[in-house]
């Protein structure tokens, strides 16, 4: 049964991903990308990464896609009608993508550890509960649930505190940069 869901969400992710690349209308592309991200979030959740799956939906399918749709509608971009696709670029893109996919598939299928099924890498929550420092985490582990968000928080703040602050600074710089970029220059000739 889990493998059925894997193939279903893989089909959603890759099928809508293909539509993103082939659709003529940018709005169609954006909506298909949102669906593709939802399928990808389901794949994350199938890998017991509940927190990452949730922020994938919140940040990508929510915030980023709204930003894309807002810009598409702000600039009023029409579908490319009557324009022929750039044939050499299309051929080059498809050939390169096929070569890259074949390479990765060949390499990963000769990778011996890649053949371990999910059953052979079981989580042992009881064992983790014994070594856990925080009572809230070890209590959750003893009940038999995986406190994914708590463990992510523990890792982020215990091991990657500095990195977290650097990311905060990056977001601040990004915000200031966007304001500077979208400010109209005084006396500029742009309309």
């Amino acid at each position, binding site marked *: 049964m889990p493998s059925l869901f*894997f193939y279903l969400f893989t089909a959603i992710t890759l099928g809508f991903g293909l539509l993103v*690349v082939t659709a003529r209308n940018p709005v169609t592309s954006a909506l298909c990308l949102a669906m593709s991200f939802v399928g990808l979030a389901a794949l994350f959740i199938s890998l017991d990464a509940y927190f990452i799956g949730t922020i994938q939906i919140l940040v990508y399918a929510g915030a980023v896609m709204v930003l*894309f749709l807002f810009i598409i509608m702000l*600039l009023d971009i029409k579908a490319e009608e009557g324009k022929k696709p*750039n044939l050499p670029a299309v051929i080059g*893109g498809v050939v390169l993508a096929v070569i890259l996919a074949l390479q990765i598939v060949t390499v990963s299928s000769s990778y011996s550890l890649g053949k371990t099924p999910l059953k052979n890498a079981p989580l042992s929550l009881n064992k983790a509960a014994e070594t856990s420092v925080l009572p809230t985490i070890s209590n959750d582990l003893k009940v038999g649930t995986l406190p994914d968000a708590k463990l992510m928080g523990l890792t982020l703040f215990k091991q*990657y505190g500095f990195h977290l602050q650097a990311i905060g600074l990056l977001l601040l710089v990004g915000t200031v940069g966007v304001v500077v970029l979208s400010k109209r220059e005084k006396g500029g000739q742009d309309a």
Partner: protein
Amino acid sequence: MITLNHYLIVSALLFSLGMAGVIARRNILIIYMCLEMMLSAANLTLVAFSRFRVVEGLPDYAAQSLVFFTITVAAAEVAVGLAIIVALYRSKQSVEVESVTKLQG
């Protein structure tokens, strides 16, 4: 039976799809969406490896922290990139890559 390879191959296909889009399309916004797809494909690889490398009975949370940072950087990058696209549209009245050839010799 789902193995690690299944996830790696899905990620490879998603990445190649995004790369084909970046090369073949001429609309900058769609190129940008394909870039986001490639970033997400890399995230899928990281999460898959994190789940299959069990450390003390739990998935490897170092990899998932890296995914968290990647998603944050991608969000900041989208905001800045879209501001650049808006600035480009203001000066060229177009979002086609063919209209931006000033650096071409």
